[in-house]
């Protein structure tokens, strides 16, 4: 094991895969000469050259679509968005072309492509720069959506995403790029897409959280432990396809569930998780499923409002106590 920052783990995955397969290239704004807006691709241009690590103008729709055409014609692009907020101007390419053209071509053309970049809240940047997009992209059959919470998952899942023959939306986080963690150095280390990770076992309540929300879930579980309760914490890691089996088995054991999701609440990941739990484990539930999401507003700028906007550990802790009828 090596201790890496999350940005280094993402880079390690790209470098290892690009060493392995010369059809893989990285394209995006500031990825080459500038070494990445968040230094994720630092050193990659020196290693692979201008032909494989390619700077673009500020034309997300153009280079996202270019990546898709390259994928249709035999390459395996990695397209970096400086943040997923900027991908909204390219969303037609992702939703209409990446997700649907394979289907409309009767399976003739596939899209082995990864769109990656940081997602969700990134501080006092106000509403346009703080969007959580996982629920949006998970709406579209044809896409796979991965959201990582730690360096080891980032490496193992990104390698799987790059090898996958379907288009993958890969969600990182500005806040977590500097986070350090143990990362496997096993040769060809991959983590299967669509498998959740049980981060902590318990029988009192199931807490589900991905990306930054995973850490709120874990912190709340530690507070509950101090109260004498063992919470089970699940990081779904992949949003589409979602690992229902792991979640449903857990809920059948704990009979209670809280979903932590940084999305805005309406039609969020938590909405689908709560629906599936009531559909598949209704008779096992001792309380309604609770969820903690961002507020049902655009993200604010003021520091106090932004803290209030996001799911907090305290919110999660209180929701867990509520479904356990402790208060």
């Amino acid at each position, binding site marked *: 094991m090596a201790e890496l920052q999350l940005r280094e783990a993402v880079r390690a995955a790209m470098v290892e895969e690009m060493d392995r397969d010369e059809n893989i290239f990285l394209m995006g704004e500031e990825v080459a000469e500038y070494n990445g807006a968040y230094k994720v691709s630092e050193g990659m241009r020196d290693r692979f050259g201008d032909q494989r690590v390619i700077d673009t103008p500020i*034309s997300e*729709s153009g280079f996202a679509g270019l990546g898709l055409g390259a994928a*249709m014609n035999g390459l395996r692009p990695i397209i970096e968005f400086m943040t997923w907020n900027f991908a909204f101007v390219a969303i037609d390419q992702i939703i209409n072309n990446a997700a649907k053209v394979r289907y409309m*071509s*009767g399976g003739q053309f596939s899209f082995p492509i990864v769109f990656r970049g940081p997602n969700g809240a990134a501080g006092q940047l106000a509403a346009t720069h703080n969007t959580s997009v996982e629920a949006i992209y998970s709406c579209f059959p044809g896409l796979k959506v991965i959201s990582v919470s730690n360096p080891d998952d980032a490496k193992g899942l990104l390698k799987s995403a790059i090898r*996958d023959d379907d288009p993958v939306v890969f969600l990182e986080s500005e806040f977590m790029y500097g986070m350090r963690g143990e990362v496997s150095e096993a040769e060809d280390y991959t983590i299967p897409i669509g498998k959740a990770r049980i981060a902590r076992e318990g029988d009192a309540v199931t807490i589900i959280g991905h990306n930054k929300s995973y850490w709120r879930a874990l912190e709340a579980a530690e507070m509950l432990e101090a109260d004498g309760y063992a919470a089970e914490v699940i990081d779904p890691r992949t949003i589409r396809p979602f690992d229902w089996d792991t979640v449903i088995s857990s809920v059948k054991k704990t009979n209670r569930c809280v979903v932590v999701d940084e999305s805005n609440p309406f039609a969020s990941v938590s909405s689908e998780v709560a629906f*599936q739990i009531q559909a598949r484990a209704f008779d096992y539930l001792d309380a309604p499923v609770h969820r903690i999401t961002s507020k049902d507003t655009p993200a604010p700028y003021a520091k106090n409002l932004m803290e209030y906007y996001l799911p907090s550990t305290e919110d999660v802790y209180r929701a867990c106590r509520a479904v356990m009828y402790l208060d």
Partner: protein
Amino acid sequence: MSLKAKEVATQNGQPEASYDTIETKLTFRHYPGDRFSHESLGLSVEEVGDIYRNMLLQRRFEERSAQMYGRQKIGGFLHLYIGQEAISTGSAYAIKPGLDSAITAYRDHGLALALGMTSNECMAELFGKVDGCSKGKGGSMHFFSKEKGMFGGHGIVGAHIPVAAGIAFAHMYKNDGGVCICYLGDGAVWQGSFHETLNLASLYRLPVVYVIENNQYAMGTAVDRATAETDLFKQCVSYAMPGSLVDGMDVFSVCQAMRDHVDMAREGQPSIVEIRTYRYRGHSMSDPGKYRTKEELEAKKNEDPILRLKSYLIQESLMSNEELDVLDVEVKAEVAASVTFADESPFPPLEDIYEHVYTQEDFPFLT
């Protein structure tokens, strides 16, 4: 708004004396009609006959499609290419089959047939049958054939333009010598994707030719109602690439222009070709075409690219009337057979709804 852009420009007049002026000389190539012959193009008599047959096949195929649409054998939208056949066929004779790639928007039947896709697979797709070129998943707007280098058939105006750049990028990256031709309508020029992509194509020196099929109307909006600079080929100036204007009613002009531009692309020089053409039918089957006069339509029909080539074949004594009649019967028979084929092909089985979404065979769909 009372003034048109040109009038405003005139009113602004000469620059004030306090300004310097920058003068630029711009040169564009022009490929007018009646300039080229089969001999100047080096086409054999047999090849000219094939060109004529291919254009006629597109025409008869679409006439029959319209009929089948009326009989509700075909659903959804049906956008006919009738009048524009010289562009698809002329450019198909400028590329290397099996190496080069092509991609277009939703008015895609003509290009599909020009690239060698069969009437059977095309008609079956219109009928939504399992033997269709997209297995009944795409319909009229989404014809695909990996085998023939047909990258679609795309329904969102302008969305395929960057995809074309990517197809060309892959040709360059793999160094396989291939070129991508991207067809778009005059309406698509005002999508942002066009401008983003033309810049990328020029910046990266991609082997791509952007063909603007200017059929004068974006659905019901005439070019001069949507476009300040109606010479669309001049867009090339902003992206530091060559641009040409071509008479799209003369298949030889199209073929010569496309050969020249494909050669440029193969040398790493992307470009724009504006081909002026005309669609005789409405935008789609539901369009009565009230935005244009009957006189305009009739005048354009006199320029018909198929009749023009037919006259040429007779005048140049390349084919006799009898031979042309035989060809017509043959083409009609091929199209009639495709209708029978499409009728007899089964609908896709219901379980096929989950096929082709992912390459992953056991994707756990929500049910």
